[in-house]
């Protein structure tokens, strides 16, 4: 039996090692004194110093965060309202709308990216104005994020008691107030899940950004891609080490807070 357990542990260990090996390599080499990857020439913090003085990386990071935050806010708003609207549609049209909304989720990123590029360039050429850049980049991120928000909010709406909204109206609330004070709190967990998903997808996206951005507007993924041809500079390793640690810390905090509120809830319920 214990041999059995040891085998299981060993197997999980090996898989985790496989998943973490490149990340460890990346982190370790962010402290490497040598510029070339592969050979270790002693410990240094130089790359972290270089990182904070690199305007190109700073710009890419700023673009990534800007697009991430704005597309999350916009997509969450559009997606939540759309989900509420879709929920009230008749069954037939609801199925069609949900089916079409699911397309970008199922489609390979490359198809999403190139089809949006075709759309933008088609419009730009037809109208003869505008060009691809930050605007199209942001629009594209909103576009691929909205379905994820809808898909996370819809189940919460389905659980919602339809009478709640009516009751609020009967008690004299305006439709807006009824939505904000009655519906929104009920579907809030779905909205938050959708927003977190949207932010993650936006930060990590390369493919759609690559096709829909314009000259001179780079996010981190595009910058890394363009560096990969010449060799990724060690300060990028330093940056991703910092970002990875920041996200880990954030996730731990969320997890820890959830655990605590769960505990408190259990205590309150006398469990």
């Amino acid at each position, binding site marked *: 039996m214990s041999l059995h*357990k040891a085998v*299981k542990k060993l*197997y*999980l260990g090996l*898989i985790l090692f*496989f*998943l973490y090996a*490149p*990340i460890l*390599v*990346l982190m370790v*080499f962010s402290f490497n004194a040598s510029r070339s*990857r*592969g*050979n270790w020439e002693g410990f240094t913090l130089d790359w972290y110093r270089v990182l904070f003085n690199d305007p190109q990386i700073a710009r890419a990071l700023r673009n990534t965060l800007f697009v991430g935050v704005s597309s999350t806010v916009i997509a969450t708003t559009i997606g939540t*309202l*759309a989900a*509420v*609207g879709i*929920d*009230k*549609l008749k069954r037939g049209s609801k199925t069609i*709308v949900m089916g*079409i*909304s*699911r*397309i*970008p*989720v*199922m*489609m*390979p990123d*490359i*198809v999403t990216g*190139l*089809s949006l590029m*075709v759309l933008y360039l*088609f419009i730009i050429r037809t109208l003869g104005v505008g060009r691809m850049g930050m605007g199209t980049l942001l629009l594209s991120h909103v*576009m691929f994020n909205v379905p*994820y928000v809808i*898909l*996370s909010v819809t189940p919460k709406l389905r659980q919602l008691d339809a009478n709640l909204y009516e009751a609020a109206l009967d008690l004299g609330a305006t439709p807006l107030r009824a*939505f904000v004070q009655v519906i929104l709190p009920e579907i809030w967990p779905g909205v938050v899940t959708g927003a977190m*998903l949207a932010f*993650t997808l936006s930060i*990590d996206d*390369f*493919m759609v950004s690559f*096709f829909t951005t314009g000259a001179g507007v780079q996010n981190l*993924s595009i910058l*890394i*891609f363009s560096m*990969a041809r010449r060799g990724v500079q060690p300060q990028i390793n330093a940056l*991703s080490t910092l*970002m*990875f640690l920041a*996200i*880990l810390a954030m*996730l731990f905090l969320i*997890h820890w807070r959830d655990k605590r509120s769960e505990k408190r809830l259990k205590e309150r319920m006398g469990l």
Partner: protein
Amino acid sequence: MKKLFAYPYIVWMAIFIAAPLLLVFYYSVTATDALGNTYFTLANFRRFFSPFSPDMVQPFHERIFVVVALRSLRLALQSTLICFVLGYPVAYIMTRKEYSEKSVLLFMLLAPMWMNFLLRTYAWLTILERNGLINNLLGRLGLPMFDILYTDAAVLLGMVYNFLPFMILPIYTSLKKQDPKLVEAAQDLGAGQLGVFLRVVFPLSIPGVVSGITMVFMPAAATFIIPHLLGGRQYFLLGSLVEMQFLNIGDWHFGSAVAVIMMMMMVVSMVVLSFFDKGGENHGRGTVI
């Protein structure tokens, strides 16, 4: 009243989901002649399936698009199979008693996905290179070189590495949903460990497996980053072909045709898979994160 919210969204959907796909489809079945007139044609598709395409600046064997498509298909199938073989036991072990309480393990599986996937894939170069970490180690031990970079094997490794969590998580979710009493019941009825697994646990986890297969196969068949980084400059998959047609060559008509063929492949595989998955699990990355 609230129904009104649906209409602006339907317009949004028409512009950003339907119109782009229709445009791609339109470009795939048209061509432009020297005078700038656009006409209907199936030549783009014929060109894809024809054995020679003299206009491509590539080594001879790369000229055949079908070869590239079949290679994409083969690598996607292989990586899906490897992910399944490696991933199912992980999901299974995670749901057993001694681990099921520890969400840490789940967290550890998800965490790597929070680091930019381009960088994670790029880091494999450092490991696999001729002067990389593995060969350094092998050299010190006096063992022969392990030179797989810029081959199918490296691309396959990159795919398995990137998509393995997408196989594990849906299987884990569907295994976790199973009522443990079913296993007890099967045991009470005299089934051995293997019998319980083969006749109860595994059949019930098929929706998760199908979901996992979709989530590995689709991105693997369409990827262009993994072959780009680990396969080298001369290495092409369907995704690279599409990217090249749109961004380097600028032939939207042919590029669109390749994209349409790619979408057809996806639709066919989805239909085939939905045949095994009558439960109608929710596919897509949304189930993972």
